[in-house]
């Protein structure tokens, strides 16, 4: 059925079309390229204060993920999207718990471990 209007129909069909246009993807690509370039430049140069570099990179990465979500996956604020946003929020919660919880617990275990050198002395 749709194969029929393949040829020659250059304009978007009228009708129930609140479709995100081509411009949305172009804007997403532009923002993502800017943020990617910023990440690589910041990582390669000494533009940022070195101890703050991980935080800066994390901020840029989170911003880029947001750009991808909004412009590519088109998770927005529309009424159809409420369920998607709630699911996303739950996913973000679980991911945060897993990642920060693992790092927290393992950092504590690490400080409580016998250092490897001491362990060697004990066995010999």
């Amino acid at each position, binding site marked *: *059925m*749709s*194969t*029929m*209007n*393949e*040829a020659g*129909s250059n304009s*978007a*069909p009228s*009708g*129930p*079309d*609140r*479709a*995100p*246009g*081509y411009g949305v*993807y*172009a804007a*997403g*690509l532009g923002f*993502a*390229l800017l943020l*990617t370039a910023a*990440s*690589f430049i910041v*990582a*390669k140069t000494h533009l940022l204060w*070195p101890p703050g*570099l*991980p935080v800066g*990179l*994390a901020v*840029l*990465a989170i911003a*880029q*993920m947001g750009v*991808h*979500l909004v412009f*590519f*996956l088109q998770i927005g604020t*529309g*009424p*159809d999207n409420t*369920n*998607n946003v709630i*699911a*996303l929020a*739950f*996913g973000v919660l*679980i*991911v945060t718990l*897993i*990642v920060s*919880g*693992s*790092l927290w617990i*393992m950092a504590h275990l690490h400080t409580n471990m016998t250092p490897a050198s001491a362990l060697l002395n004990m066995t010999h």
Partner: protein
Amino acid sequence: MSTGVGFVPEHGISAAAGDARSASGPASIRITVAYGFWIFLLSDIIMFSTLFATYAVLKDATAGGPVGKDLFDLKTVGVETLCLLFSSYTCGIGLLSAEHGRLRAFYLCFALTFLLGAAFLGLEISEFARMVSEGAGPSRSAFLSGFFSLVGLHGLHVTAGLVWLTFMVAQTAAQGLRDYVRRRLHCFSLFWHALDIIWVALFTLVYLMGVQ
């Protein structure tokens, strides 16, 4: 199968129709299918988060072996990132073309998506091969085990995406842009964009922070 749902109006992104229905009755199939697939993607992302946590915990456990600074080449990673980013863009444009019934533009965009994805995969495989040949394989240290699990799983997802893409192009060629084909194309585009999101986290944590 396609005719069984014929009474549900599904003209591509018929968001307006979906609005009316959410107030009085179930949402359109297009919206529920995308929602279900979104739940799957989130569970996939949660699985990735466990590997991200593993990598972050183990990234200093190099067992006297090579560290990220010795192994990673940011130029390759930059090209890989651009490949995935542009493939995400062409995938989105391809989906839009399919929704507007422009079959030729759809084939072109999905061919580009495939080529860019394959280029990404080729770069990643050659990087892995180089590391293994330098004695920095997954069994060298806990850091490298974590690295190969995390990056390798993403690579496997890209491979699966390429297989799915090929399948969807074949299905479109065989059956035309029917409603269920469009729904599957939409799910594929969600999958492909989600892979790009994971790659953003991956190149930041593993590569950009790894070479410091």
